[in-house]
């Protein structure tokens, strides 16, 4: 009897387990099916192309492994929410119907609501697309899995430290605080996303300075290079980069046009130590010389006319320091944000004039954490930054930057060029809008996936970069 019961129990357990696994896999794959039916419905080639990019075994496997590790997917989190009936793939929010959507303020940032009715950067509508399942690289997942749950702590300066007291960003490749309990932990999880890849190469990035009449004032074309200098997992040199000890990330900018600033090159190195300011050097072609700039001044625009300051690189790059800033987890929520489909198409649909969005903007529902970075020094350009961090990418879906009068000054929204088969991220487009003065910097990026293996450390040596045109 006992043996019979045990057999029955084991058989049932096995069946239930198999069913659960099958259901999980089905649930994991449902987002791809959603995209298939959505693409068929819209008939737009870019949507079909995105389906082609995600509908393969590699994507399914990688998505599943991350879902298993996290214990959730974007879809599963959304499934727990009671969403408005209209808020589903295919629905288009327009100037005509927005007043009949009482829920819209709960999901759509005010900046985008205003675009439907404003003459400044106007759009025709916002199309809801199926929610994707995003993830980072497998090697990053493996490195994260290898960590103990309490591997990291945050010290009195706000630095990420490991159990041995070493800088956590340098000693480990894994992501910290996958389930953040407070704003500081979330901030470090956001920092750990970095640029979503070990190496980044924009060839080129177009940065357009646009005025309130949506006219182009200036446009800068540049190369941007970025290299993770510690905890590298996917591209050689793996681990920490020799010669860049103590440095977490390095960025380089080489302006290609306009002619009068062509050749301007900048290299910025970020140290793990909170007390060590960035090493920042600029090669100025009109001097034919390299100049050191202070790493303490990240509040200036990268170039005249732009709303993009040095601190806003990858949406938020000012240095973590709990003595100067307070990091507060505000809430978990759902937000409508641009899908990271830049590998196939630009959901912002930036027009050829560089200062307008040509039609319908695609957005998807994303589960996020919202945290605030509050300036304690009362000297920073923003009194508060509000960052909506995606629960799958660990990167910002949307930012609001509040001036010292308490008014929203700038917003950041972007579209990542996410490579579904590998989980690597670069960028496709971004808008940094100055809502106070009705100006915008609109960015279009051509991410050079095929040139990543040509990047060398010499790019981050200003004397070598200056001669690279």
């Amino acid at each position: 009897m006992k043996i019979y019961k045990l057999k029955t129990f084991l058989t049932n357990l096995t069946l239930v387990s198999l069913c659960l696994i099958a259901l999980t896999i089905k649930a994991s794959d449902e987002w791809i099916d959603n995209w298939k039916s959505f693409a068929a419905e819209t008939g737009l080639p870019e949507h079909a192309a995105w389906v082609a990019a995600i509908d393969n075994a590699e994507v399914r496997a990688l998505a599943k492994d991350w879902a298993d590790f996290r214990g959730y997917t974007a879809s599963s989190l959304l499934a727990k929410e009671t969403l408005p009936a209209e808020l589903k793939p295919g629905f288009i929010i327009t100037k005509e119907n927005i007043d009949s959507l009482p829920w819209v303020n709960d999901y759509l940032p005010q900046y985008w609501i205003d675009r439907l009715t404003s003459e400044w950067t106007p759009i025709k509508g916002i199309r809801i697309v199926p929610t994707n399942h995003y993830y980072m690289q497998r090697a990053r997942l493996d490195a994260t899995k290898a960590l103990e749950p309490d591997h990291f702590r945050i010290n009195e300066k706000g630095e990420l430290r490991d159990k041995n007291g070493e800088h956590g960003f340098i000693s480990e490749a894994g992501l910290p605080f996958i389930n953040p309990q407070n704003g500081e932990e979330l901030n470090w999880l956001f920092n750990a996303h970095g640029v979503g890849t070990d190496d980044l190469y924009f060839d080129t990035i177009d940065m357009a300075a646009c005025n309130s009449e949506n006219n182009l004032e200036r446009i800068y074309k540049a190369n941007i290079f970025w290299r993770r200098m510690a905890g590298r997992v996917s591209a050689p040199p793996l681990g920490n980069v020799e010669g860049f000890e103590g440095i977490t990330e390095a960025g380089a900018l080489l302006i290609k046009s306009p002619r009068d600033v062509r050749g301007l090159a900048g290299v910025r190195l970020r140290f793990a130590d909170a007390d060590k300011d960035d090493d920042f050097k600029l090669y100025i072609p009109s001097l034919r010389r390299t100049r050191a700039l202070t790493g303490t001044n990240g509040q200036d625009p990268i170039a005249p006319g732009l709303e993009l300051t040095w601190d806003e690189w990858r949406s938020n790059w000012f240095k973590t320091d709990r003595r100067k800033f307070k990091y507060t987890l505000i809430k978990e929520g759902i937000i409508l944000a641009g899908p990271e489909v830049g590998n196939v198409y630009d959901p912002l649909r930036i027009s050829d004039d560089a200062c307008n969005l040509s039609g319908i903007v695609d957005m998807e529902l994303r589960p996020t954490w919202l945290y605030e970075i509050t300036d304690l020094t009362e000297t920073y350009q923003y009194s508060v930054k509000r960052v909506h961090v995606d629960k799958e990418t660990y990167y910002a879906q949307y930012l609001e930057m509040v001036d010292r009068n308490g008014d929203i000054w700038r917003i950041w929204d972007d579209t990542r060029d996410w490579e579904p088969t590998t989980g690597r991220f670069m960028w496709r487009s971004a808008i940094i809008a100055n809502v106070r003065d009705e100006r915008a910097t609109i960015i279009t990026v051509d991410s050079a996936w095929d040139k990543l293996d040509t990047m060398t450390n010499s790019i981050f040596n200003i004397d070598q970069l200056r001669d690279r045109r």
Partner: protein
Amino acid sequence: MNNIIIKITLETKTRLKRLTSIVSASLLSLFLVAPPAYAEDFWFGGRLKAGTGAYIDRLDDSSRGQGPSQFLLELQAEWSPNNNVTVVGDVWLRGDRFYDLDDGEFRAPAMQNFTSPQSAFLDRFSMSTSSDGTYQLPDPFGASGKENELLDDFDDEILRELSIRFTNDDGSASVKIGKFQRGWGQADGLRLLDILNAQDLRQRTLLADTDEIRIPAWTVAINVDISNDVALELIYIPEVRHSEFVINNPTPNDQSSGGAFGFPFPRLIEGQTGFGMPLLGARLNEKEVEDWKNQEIGLRLKFGAFGGEATLNAFHGYQDLPVVVLTGATLHVGSFINDPAASVANVPLDVPTTIGAIHAPGQYVDFLQSLAGGTAAPGDFPLIPFGCLDILNPAAGGFPCSVTADFDMDFTERQKTVGFSFTRDMSELKFGPKSVSPVLRLEVAHEFDKAFNRQVINDPFIPGLSAKGTPALIGTKADMVTYRDQISTLIGFDYNLWLSAWKNQRSSIFITSQFFNIKTKDHKNLMFQAPYAMLDVEENQQYFTQTYTFGLRNDNVILDGLAVWDLSKDSFAYRQRFTFSALGNKLIPRIEVGIFDGDEEEGLLALYRQSDYVEFSLTYQF
């Protein structure tokens, strides 16, 4: 025989230069035409700039003429076929329509006025800088400056860059070959270690943009990263260039004009009496080292130190500015104004004879001193034996006479300099409303045996006596030129200024401050720069510079100011620019104002005291 050798050498040099120009032009044409056909990584751009303006503080206040009217056409191309090779080509054609439009109005000081004994001959003639002289008293002098209307020598003035750079795969070593410029050091405006390239001072003197003022040279630059923060740069320059400038010279057989930015013709002063030296002109010849047979070598080691970046530099080359050396003279019998065409005889004088005519007892200097002492009498004028008119007794008859001294502007002196530079973000010092740190810039250069003209020389005829001022330029090179070590130091700070009262300041005001001290050992009785005989060298020559850059109207208007104080000579220069942006920054209108202040010939800045200007320019870039 000597003449034949000189002729052959000159022909060879001319042919070599022509060959260089032809080869450069061919390569450039090939470069501009061939790569676009198949190259993805090809860039082509350029600009067209035209300006017009007014000189607002003229020597002759009543005159109204044209101001700076410079124009520029520049074409640039770059090609990077792969990560290991970069090719750059850049040609520009520059000029100034001032010389054509001014109608002879702009005046510059000329020779001492021989008709003004009541002023101790300190009164001077003036010269037109935009039309040739009439050679008729009372206003005989002028030079059209036509040669500066268009700077069109292909190799020297049009070809701005033609270079190819090779680098290894990891970028740790590179070689760049071709014609280009390279900047060293940390100092702006004044050059301590930024000495690899000479300067073109003809168009806007030191107020031009740094990259536009440097004269590119055929160069080989090798860069090697020895480790992550140690790098070595080796520079080899087989084509030696010196700085380009024009002295506004009224002397009829060597007249030249650089307009408002020409160096003024120097005061000719007998230093012991303070009397002007009338009837003297100057013919100037450039004595240069030979291209491709002489060379300059530079070495720079860059490394991290004390939390910043340091360099050690060494340079072995040639001086960019000349010493002045007497090579002879011509006595013009028949002209007071050094006009050989109006003279009945032009008597060449060799160096010893010229020295004798100036310094020997009873000759020119002696005569001036007796005039100053009130002991001169009719018949003492030293040129009477040549049939010349006695300026103390014109009624006695004779020819009007004058003397033109021949000088080499000698650019063949060596420049031997070592130095170091250092720059560091002073992150320990945070101040201002946004707690921003200044950036420190330090630079020290030690130049060995820098050549100077003497301001005082031993009297060649009477031991124990000396000659001072302009007469010190009349001697042998051994008498006139001496060598001193010079140590130049810069300390400068850059700072991003945020104003606490301006709550919504969009961008910082970028300011730089620099203090220079140039110490010259045994400085007494040296000329700061010949032929300005009355301009002496300070033991510690000090300058202070201040700049600011600031964007208004969302950076559609950029203001930038540059102020330079010569603390030792009490002179001053200021440049203010208002730069606008239009048509998507393709069209760049600019208003530029330049002001100079100082006493006559009191320092470099004071040389331009009559050259204040306002210029409006339009640049179209593509």
